[in-house]
Structures are given as C-alpha cells and as structure tokens.
C-alpha cells in the first residue's frame, strides 16, 4: 500500500519540470564545485609541505647552537582534500604557523598576490545541500497535501482503506527518495569527476567522510521535506503553503545562519590584538630575572617566558574559536546551521580543523625541541643549557646533526571517526527534528478535515 503511494509520488516528481530544473542546477553546481576545488587544491598542494624548512639546512641537518637564537620556521597546514564538501574557512582561516623552536609565535593566513581579487568564496557541496536542495525539498512537497486537497484527489485517495499516516509517510518517502536521487547522482558524478581530474587522491578515511557527509545530507534533507509537508498540512491552499514554506526557508537557511557571525561578534568579548600585545608584554614581569640567579635558573626562566607566550597565544586562539562557536550555538535552532556545523566536523574543516592544526604545530615543535635537547646530551663539550634567543658560548652544543623524523611536520587531519564523534550532538538534533516534525505533521493531518467545507 505504502509502496503504491510512494511509486505514484515518485513518478509524479520525476515527470515534473521542477524536478528536472532542480536536478540540472544541483548537478551543475556540484560538478562546478569539484572543478573549482581541484584547481585550488593543486595550487595549495604545491605549497605543502615545502614550508617545513627553516629549522634545518639544505642537507636536512640542524645546527644545535644556532637553532635557539635564529628565528624559526613556518609550517603550512595540509590542504584538506575534501574542501569541496565544506569550504568555509578553507580559504579564509589561518593556514600556517610561525614558530621558534621554543614557542609558537603566530598563526597566519599565507596570502598570495592576487588573493584580493577573490570573490565571495567558494561554492561547496554543503552550500548546495543547505540552499539549493533544501529549497528543492520544499519545491517537491509544498503542495503535496494542500494541492491534492484543493484538487480533490486527496478525498479520492482517502476513500480507500489507507490510513492517513500511510499517505503522509508515502509522500515523505517519495520526496526524500527523489531528492536523494538527485543528490546521490550528482555526488557520484562529482566523485567520478574528481577521480578523472586526478589532482586529489582521497584516502580510505576520506571516502568514509564522503559517505558520512552523504548520509548527513539525507538526514538534513528529510527535515526540510518534513518542513514542506508541515507547511502543506497546516495551510488551506497551495499558495499559502508556498508562502509559508518560503518564509520558513528564508528564516532557516538565510536569516538564522547568517546571524551566526553577527551574534558571535556580539556575544562574548574577545581581546583585541592590541590588548593581547599588551598582555604579552607583561609576561617578563611575571617571570623575573634577578642578578642572584644561576645561569641554569636564568635559562629556565627564559624558557618559561617563552612557554607562557605560547600558552597566551593558544588561549587567545581558544577564546576566538569559543566566540565563533558560541555564535553558532545560538543559531542551532536552524537545521541549516546544524547541518553545516556537523559537516564542518565530519569533513574536518573550519575552526575544528584550525584548532587541530595548532595542536599539531605545537606537538611538532615540542618533538623537535626534545630531539634537539636529546642530541645536545651527547655532546661532552656542551653545558646542556638551552637559552631562548641566545647564541654563542658553550652553554649549548654547537654540533650539526640530523634530527631524524622529528624534523618532518605532518599535519594530520581529524579522522572520520573523530569527526563523527564531534558531530554526534548535531546529528542527534537533526534526527530529533525529523522525528518531531513528522510527529507534528502526522498529528495535524490525522485531525484535519480533508474535505472542503461546503460553501467555503
């Protein structure tokens, strides 16, 4: 019975003009995103990891004595091979870390000449799903109840021994199936295109992420299918349903998610760059040097200062990320925001990725420092005292050695499992929305007079 309804609805969708238009647009946008991304990725990939120089010389060796006093290095974040899924931040947020051996000094965006010409940012699949397909969900469902009610076919259907729940479920499943078909075909085409272009080589975890993203998208779309059905059930005619859906869609997809940035700016204050600068300047006051200190004590105080500076930087970063998250938490009423924050985590992009990159950079620096200190132990001429920004003398070894694997900076993207774990709360909320929306739609439809009131 259910299957009969689903089949008819599906056939109806597939034959309609709106379905073809939706299909064409989705296909076009998703493949364009791939083409655009692959040229961007090829450019970015060239830069990584060529920037992991600086600490070591051309032969890959490090001069232990010089490393403490000579600036540092810049490491570049690995460009995500899945930037086409979720691009937000991929081209805006810092992508390199500047560090000395004893402390991270800043996170920056490597700018290229010509970046200023860039426009409004890249189109990613998250965008296609949140804007275009969510709208498509409404397009397929907005008059499925109200329109049939007006046309009188609904009574003809309900004159048969089918329950209203079955009818509603049939319409829901058919619209979701139609949308999923559009989405999955475009997704597959996109993936095949990606393989054909050959610039990106997704690994096993990446395929997993793409799969999870697809699943997540379908859950998200089911919320919007139900939103369309809700609008259809609660209104008297298709015109009203269309208006109702439009307002809901506008609010959920445009207004609320866009308020995120604004709300983030208004809620929770972060320190300005100048205030942070001031805070960094007071660090020496907290770790004072006195003339009575031994050379070892001086060295350790100086190291403490550097690590305090790094801590300050990381705390600052955390507060910035926290502010952004806070703003986005407030927009979680909208499934569109939920979806994009879940996609951000599953794909491993945005602030989630930035935090991870900072952690990786710090871990790399610490590992390198350990390796250097370890190497110094084997030098009998050294006094084994590492003093930041201090050259010369024999307090530290002046040997040149190969630090081995410690010199390799490997920026590891969060795995699919980690991403999904981080996104589980969002996914749960999305599922909850689906269930709630279906319950409300059913509750309303079950009690509705489906026949037009005589004389009305």
């Amino acid at each position, binding site marked *: 019975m259910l299957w009969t309804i689903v089949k008819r609805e599906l056939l109806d969708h597939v034959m309609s003009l709106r379905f073809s238009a939706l299909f064409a647009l989705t296909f076009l946008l998703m493949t364009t995103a791939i083409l655009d991304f692959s040229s961007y990725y090829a450019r970015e990939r060239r830069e990584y990891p060529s920037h992991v120089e600086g600490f070591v010389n051309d032969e890959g060796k490090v001069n232990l004595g010089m490393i403490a006093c000579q600036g540092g290095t810049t490491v570049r974040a690995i460009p995500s091979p899945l930037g086409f899924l979720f691009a937000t931040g991929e081209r805006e947020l810092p992508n390199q870390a500047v560090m000395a051996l004893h402390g991270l*000094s800043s996170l920056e965006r490597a700018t290229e*000449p*010509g970046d*200023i010409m860039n426009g409004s940012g890249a189109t990613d699949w998250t965008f296609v799903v949140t804007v275009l397909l969510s709208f498509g969900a409404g397009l397929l469902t907005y008059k499925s109840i109200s329109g049939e009610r007006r046309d009188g076919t609904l009574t003809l259907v309900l004159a048969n021994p089918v329950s209203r729940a079955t009818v509603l479920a049939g319409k829901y499943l058919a619209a979701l199936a139609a949308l999923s078909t559009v989405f999955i075909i475009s997704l597959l085409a996109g993936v095949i295109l990606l393989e054909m272009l050959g610039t990106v080589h997704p690994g096993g975890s990446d395929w997993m992420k793409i799969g999870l993203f697809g699943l997540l998208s379908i859950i998200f779309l089911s919320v919007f299918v139900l939103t369309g059905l809700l609008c259809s059930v609660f209104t008297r005619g298709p015109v009203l349903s269309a208006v109702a859906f439009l307002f809901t869609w506008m*609010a959920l997809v*445009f207004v609320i998610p866009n308020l995120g*940035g*604004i709300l983030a700016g208004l809620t929770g204050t972060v320190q300005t760059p100048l205030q942070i600068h001031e805070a960094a300047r007071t660090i020496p006051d907290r770790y004072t040097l006195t003339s009575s200190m031994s050379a070892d004590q001086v060295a350790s105080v100086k190291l403490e200062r550097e690590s305090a500076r790094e801590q300050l930087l990381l705390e600052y970063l955390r507060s910035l990320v926290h502010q952004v998250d806070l703003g986005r938490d407030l927009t979680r009423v909208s499934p569109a925001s939920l979806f994009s924050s879940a996609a951000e985590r599953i794909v491993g992009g945005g602030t989630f990725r930035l935090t991870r990159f900072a952690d990786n950079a710090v871990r790399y620096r610490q590992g390198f420092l350990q390796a250097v200190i370890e190497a110094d132990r084997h030098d009998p001429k050294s006094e084994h005292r590492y003093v930041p920004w201090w050259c010369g003398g024999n307090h530290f070894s002046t040997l040149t050695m190969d630090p081995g694997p410690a010199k390799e900076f490997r920026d590891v993207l969060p795995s699919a499992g980690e991403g999904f774990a981080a996104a589980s709360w969002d996914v749960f909320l999305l599922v909850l929305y689906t269930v709630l929306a279906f319950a409300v739609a059913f509750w309303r439809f079950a009690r509705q007079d489906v026949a037009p009131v005589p004389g009305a």
Partner: protein
Amino acid sequence: MILHIVRKELLVNLLSMRFLAGFIVSALMMGIVGYVLVEDYAARVQKYLADVQEHREALAQTKVYSTIAVVVDIPPSPLSVFSRGSQDLPTSVLVSPYHTPSLIDEGGGTATIGLSGTSSQPGNPLLRMFSSIDLGFVISTILSLFAVLLVFDSFSGEREQGTLKMLLSSSTGRVHLFAGKFLGALLTLAIPLTVGFLEVMLLWALHPALSFGGSVWVSTGLIYLSSLMFLSGFLSLALLLSLYARESSSCLMYLLLGWVTVAVVIPAGAEFIADSVRPRGDRENMLSESANARREFLKVYESIEYRQIGSWNNVSLDPFAGESFLGITQEEALNRLAYNRKVVPMKFRYAEERYRAVESYAQSLRRWGRTRDNLMRPSLCVVYNNVVKAIAGTDIDSFDDAVQRARLYRGAMMAYLEPKSATPEWFTRVFEYPDVQPTESNQRYWQSLIEKQGERAVEKILSWDRVTALDLASMPSPAVGAPESAERAAHALPDGVILFASCLLFIALSIIRVLHYPLN
C-alpha cells in the same frame, strides 16, 4: 484611475500577513546588521586614526632622507554599512623611494592570530569565515524575496479568484491595471526599505564618535535610489512571470528557483568560468620575473665597487631600503655621495622594474576580474551589489584608485627627494652631530665612559635619538582621504545603467504580455 488601483493594491498588501511577516524580518535584520556594522565602522575608524597618528609620528621621527617611508592609510568608508566589501583589502599602502605601490602588494596580516598586535582588523579574525553580511546583502536577498512574495499571484491569483474579469469589465485599461499593481507593490516595498535606511541614519546620528559630511548623505541617497531601482526590477520580473504562470503557487516556486539561480548559482559559477575563459596571468611567471629583476639589480649593485676612505659608525645599509650613517667623517661622506650618484638612481629604477613585473600580473588579474564580473552581470543581484559597492567605495576599484593615487604621490615625493639624494642629508646628519664620529679623541672619550659608566652610556651617545628629526614641512603630503562621492558615482554608472535598463526591459515585456494576457 491609476491612483485608485494603487491605493487598493497598497491597502491589500499592507493588510496581508505576508507584509507583516516580511516587514518584521527585514526591519529586524536591517536593524541588527546596521547596528553591528556601524559599531564595526566606528572600531575601524578608531584603528584608522590610531594608525594615522602612529605613522605620522614615525615619519616625523625620520632622521635622514633615504629612510623616508610614507604609509598611506586608507580611511574606512562610512558607507560600508551598505556594502562591507572584501575583508582582504589592505588598509594601508606603503610608499617609499624603493617601493612603488601596486594593487597586489602583500597585504598586512589578514587573519593573523599573534601576539605582535599587528592586524588589519580590530575584531576576531576568525569571523571572516562567516560570509560578510551587510545591508546590501539584506536588500538583495531578503527584500528581493519579499518583492517576489508580494506580486507572484497578483495576476494569476486574481484570475483564479475570478476578480480579474470583474476588474477588466469596468473601464480600467490593462496597462493601468499593471501600473497600479506595480506601483502599489513598489510603495509597499519602499516601507521596509525606508525603515531600514532610517534605522542606519539613526544609528549614525546617535553614535557618539561619528559625524559625517554632506557627501555621505548624498551617497546614502544614491544607494537608496539604486535600491529602489533594484527592487522595481525584481518586482517587474516577478510580475512578468506571474503573467506567464498557469497557477500562482507554481509561479512562486519557479520565481524562487529563478531567484536561487540569479542570486546564488550565477555568482558561484562565474569565477570558475572566468578562469577557463580568460585565465589569470601566470603567477609563477610574475614571481620569477620579479625575482629576476631583483637578481639583476643585486648583480649590478654588487659589481659597483665601493672604496672606503674615511671611517663611519652606527651604520645601517640595505640595498632595498635606505641607508644611514650616524657617525661618518666629512671625507667619507663625500666619497659616499660620489658612490651614491651611481647607485641611488639604480635603486629607484629597481623599484620601478619590480613594479612593472608585478603590475603586468595585476593587469591580468584586473582583466580576469572584469570577465568574471561580466559573467555575473546576468544576475540582477550582482549588478545591484556592484552599484552599492562602487558608491560606498568598498570595491576593489576604489582600492585600486587609492593605490594609483599613492603611486602618483610617489612621483611627487620623488621629485622632492631626488635632489636630496645628492646631499649628505640623504644618509647622515654628521655635520650637526660631530661627537659620534670615530675620531681618535672621541674613541678615547668613549673608552673612559665605558670604564666609568658601562656600555650603556656609549650606546646612548651613539643612538639616533639625540639627532633632531628632519624638517619635512616642504615635502608634498599624500592626498589621503576617500575619493569624492561624484567620482564614486561615476564608477557606479555602468552598473547603474544596466540596472535601469533591465528594469525598463522587464516592465516593457510585462506590459506587452499584459495586453495579451488570456483571462481564462
């Protein structure tokens, strides 16, 4: 007659739920966005003023002519409330004898999270990941949707209800009916628009730190007018579709699909198509060209022999920047001058050569940008955003203008500086500060000072701090400030014309259609 219809349409619109909902949404959005952006503008003005002060002080502290570097700060536009523009645009341009500014110079620290206090943005750099939303965005998305909502069923709906025949059975002409509906809807839309603009003006007036000249108000008026034009374009487009649709609800949905295409799909595809139609110049080529120029320059620079005859002290030398000698003997200064006659013009030339290499790439970027913009022009939203951006002066062209002005200013500056490069003040002020020259008597004195007071005392003597700064009163000062509003309006003209023309086109098409509109 028209007035009568307009009044009826206006009343119908104003009493509808859609108006109320749309009005609340847009007034709220415009209020919030306006507030945030006015605050943002105030913060950026503060930063700008602090920067100007800092750069002016730094310039006033300059001791020799060769180290003069002028940082031209670009003031934020008060109209950024309407169009925020790219956040990647640098806020200052460096002008020095060794650096000719160009469009694509390294912008200072975008999205930098560090402890050094240098960031072009006052707030949280991570907020860049959110799309920048401004009043232009609110108008081009929310109000345009609102426009669609107001009129999508104005013909098909009346036909469905059967009131259309009733209307036309009276002596109302079809064109009158169209005009009435159009104007009625436009007036309705003008209400949230006007409220939004009033909100912004109120925020401006109430903000304690802001005050504006007349040109800002004129530009605001221009933006208001172009917004009205944009909305009427959208209205007539929606009316046109309503005249072709069989059923009003599907008309709405097709309009929206069209809207998504116009507002979202076209801008998204344009960048990619532009890349394949007219590729950006070869960046690697540009980099290697400027690296070549640098290498060439260094080769010649190093080949010119410098034979030192006198002595100097506290020197700073940089082939790509100025030079300063705190303590230098008379004879050595003359020797240096003779050497500089060969070298300094070369340094100046190198600045120009580097500029040329970069500029040819910038030129290709500009062409690429123009192609991309043209590809996006079928979208009415983009045309409108272009107009607002140009009037507000937050577009790339305005920044480009600022860079060009800075470059022209460099010409004036060089005219002033070039004669100076033939004087010793180019690199030293030795003649009014003889006690730092490493003469024998001086050195004996320093030795005794070190023994008595430590090294610090000598460092103090040898510091540039004690040298009086140059008197730069006669140096031409950069023409800071935003371009005139008339100039900006001229920038906006082409897009304004497109906006106007498409608006007229849609109206004309609708009128033709309305004359042949089937009533059954």
